[in-house]
């Protein structure tokens, strides 16, 4: 009994940290909408707090996840997959918006779970930024956003467990349908993730990108409604209609083309840190 309850309790504990950290980070992303709620004297400090909070949260979550990931197989897979992700990302920089890296994040998050997906998102951005020399204040925000994309894929529902196969022919047809359903689900999630990623990245940077005194500028004095409208228009113009749409299409096409084979390859590697630990105790 102790064998089974111990890991479960530690998972719940870290889940709280991960969930709480993500909520805090989301708040930091949305800092422009919180400025109005703060006393006027403190308003200047809000973006600074947001900018400090995101890297701090990354360190905190990385520390939380690091212990769980400390097995040879996980570390090796995390390493090579983030290299693949970084290579894909760098190869795509010249081709505007064709960010195929989401395909990898979504497929790996799906197979190895939300925590792995989150870390893979963090590391992919870290590695590509190191390699390309693009480290800056924007990097932590990108890391978080990509981490969420991977984690979200790990939280998607699974097909209800099928009854044990009776005939081999029938089970293989069922399996094919199941795979199609899974690919469709992941592609749909890819579209959502592509647009959500664009919105999130616009959100924190919007006040800096536009500056003051334009129609779509962030204005501290007015209500959230008007700021939201300004933001929506800014987002539509800068990314939603262009980059994000290209990214959504790339992701869907990528998942449809290589999804089945990549899922099979990842599943054949059988990463399952918890069951690995359990099996040697029993």
């Amino acid at each position, binding site marked *: 009994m102790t064998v089974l309850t111990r890991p479960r309790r530690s998972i719940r504990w870290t889940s709280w940290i991960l969930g709480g950290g993500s909520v805090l980070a989301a708040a930091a992303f949305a800092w422009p909408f919180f400025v109005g709620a703060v006393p006027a004297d403190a308003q200047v400090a809000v973006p600074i707090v947001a900018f400090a909070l995101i890297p701090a949260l990354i360190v905190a979550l990385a520390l939380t996840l690091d212990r769980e990931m400390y097995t040879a197989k996980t*570390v090796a897979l995390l390493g090579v997959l983030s290299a693949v992700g970084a*290579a894909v990302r760098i190869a795509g920089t010249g081709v505007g918006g064709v960010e195929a890296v989401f395909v990898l994040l979504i497929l790996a998050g799906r197979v190895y779970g939300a925590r792995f997906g989150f870390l893979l998102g963090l590391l992919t951005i870290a590695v590509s930024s190191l390699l390309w020399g693009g480290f800056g204040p924007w990097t932590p925000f990108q890391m978080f956003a990509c981490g969420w994309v991977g984690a979200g894929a790990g939280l998607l529902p699974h097909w209800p467990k099928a009854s044990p196969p009776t005939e081999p022919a029938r089970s293989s047809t069922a399996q094919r349908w199941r795979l199609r359903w899974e690919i469709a689900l992941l592609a749909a999630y890819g579209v959502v993730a592509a647009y959500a990623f664009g919105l999130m990245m616009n959100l924190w940077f919007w006040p800096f990108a536009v500056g003051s005194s334009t129609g*779509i500028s962030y204005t501290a004095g007015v209500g959230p409604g008007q700021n939201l409208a300004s933001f929506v228009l800014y987002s539509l113009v800068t990314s939603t209609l262009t980059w994000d749409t290209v990214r959504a299409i790339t992701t869907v096409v990528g998942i449809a083309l290589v999804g089945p084979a990549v899922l099979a390859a990842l599943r054949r590697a059988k990463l399952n840190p918890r069951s690995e630990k359990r099996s040697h105790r029993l």
Partner: protein
Amino acid sequence: MLRLRLAPLRAAAVLAVGFVLLRVVYRVVFGGAGAGAGPLLLNLPQLRLDGPFSHITLLGPITLVGLGNAALSALPVAAVIVFFGLLNAVVNVQALFARGAGRGPLRAISRSLVIAWATFPALLESVRRVRVARALRGERSIASLLVPVFEQTIERALALAASMETRGFAAVRVIPGVCETPVLLADASLDFGADWHLDELNVTLEPGTLTVIVGATGSGKTSLLHSMSGLFQHFYDGTQHGRIDIAGADRALTLPRDTAGFVGLVAQNVRLGFAAESVHDEIGFALAVRNVAPTIVHARVLEVAARLQIVHLVDRSIDQLSAGEASLVAIAAALVNSPILLLVDEPLADLDTAARDRVCTVLGQLAHEAGVCVVIAEHNTREFDVIADAWLQIRRSRVHQLSSAEIQPKLVEIPVPKPADSPSWGRIPASFGSASGRAAAAPGATRSIATMPAKPLASIRRLSVRHRTDLAVDDVSFEVQAGDVIALRGSNGAGKSSLLRAIALPMAADTVIIAGHDVHSLKRRTRRQSVALVPENVDDLLFAITVAEECRRADRRLHLAQSARTGPEHGEPVTAALFAQLLGFDAITDAAHLLERHPRDLSTGERLCLVMAIQLAARPALLLVDEPTRGLDLAARALVSAALLTATDRTSAVLFATHDDDFSRGLATRTLRMEAGRLSSPIEVLS
């Protein structure tokens, strides 16, 4: 920590300028460029939006001061961008991460980053190889590139994980080893579900001995080896029954990482298992993950390197090693903990003769001078005749422990197995050795001879291949007649593979003429009807999730090529039928169990047959096969040679490269010999 790279700075400067321009554009479009009293540049009509956007006005007047203000307001952020560009250009952040690997609270993540870093060269190499393979298959889909590269990456991750695991990565407890009995297997058995099993294992190995595990491919040499390293039970999900004790530790309950202090493992493909960037860190890895002080690690690394006489390699980067050097470094890395038991998996596979001798000598010394219990899985047994003390022979799911004297006659008298279910095998004597006999067996070939008797099927004219500065193939010319089965022989590095690839994908016009066509001028789709190559790494060509799907894709590609000439002919599964035929089955239905599998779950011989089927489906006039027998045992070799003979039904001539004399002797009608990029002797005809 510090160094100068200009690229990040340049990128940051471009980004900063772009940022300033973008902000000016925003102000112009969203009505913010009209501030100030300066001269009016342009007075655009103002547009007011409706609904929730009613506070927004588009366009409007533009003044010089307004534009200037916009640009000025963007400068702080642009300065931040340039500042970080400068930082990236000067600070080597990667080195900061490398320091954290193995230590501290972020050791898993920093180690992942180091691995990611070390993976890049391999990734580029992998992309390069798969692009060639994809051209050979006539594919251009994105999946045919990405999937094999991805599969290779996962394979690398697993090899790496296994190597890290056996070197004590993430170990939490330290178990002392007992020297007296390094290996004890008592009534043990091993199995992988229903697929494979090894029973009644009773083996005891002494310290200071060298034991070689021999057996057919797929008989389980590696699994037996890993039942001792613990990877079989704890990494590859195998099941162990009975008792296996390694230096006193119960293998069923002890993880590989916990025995890293006294069990060393040298994996099959050592390069895949390298976890560090420099030779020094690679050798010291097992100590560094145990948090041993860096000075002690350094001293120990030098000590081990001195023992193997590789001190000159210590400062090198890991990707600057030759195959032989890489093997020695891997052995050094396994020795750094002074193991009681050293396990070595196929150490000689990729090595030339000089490197083989070196590795054998080192392993012999470790056993007989340092007192290590050395266990080697290998099918090149000849090299170990002198130094082996005992042999473990795997036959029909049993292991026989033989002394050196017992094994000698047995190894010599192993008969050539004859696959009973192979109809083409029986045809060998009939069509053997003579072109006319073979032509009778291959109606397609007869026709082509009849129509153009004077012309050779293929002529290779003054073909040269240059790899950077070396001339891999130097001015090679020869002709192939219809009905030929040619063996291309020569030692490693003679240029055989380069020649075959240059024939299949010629770089220059008029160097390869097959059936009257200049192959260089042919399009991707039609080229394979003239010449098709089965490369050495057949896995590079496979990218579907079942064998059946792989065959269907090949058929589809075929129909595309054919519909251009003769119109579509859909329906019959050409490739699947060929695959079954090459394996010696009478009908596709007999191979149904294989068609349902993942291509990478097939045995090496079956996979070779699958790729041969894919390439033969296009009915190439000339089929090229590179090293078909590499890593195969006698039974699998018989399968492949039968498949090559079957292949002559669908092609007019076969040219295969091999360094295996026995294999080519029974099969080839002619032999070409290659040495240092040249055909060394005139064509010899066997008759």
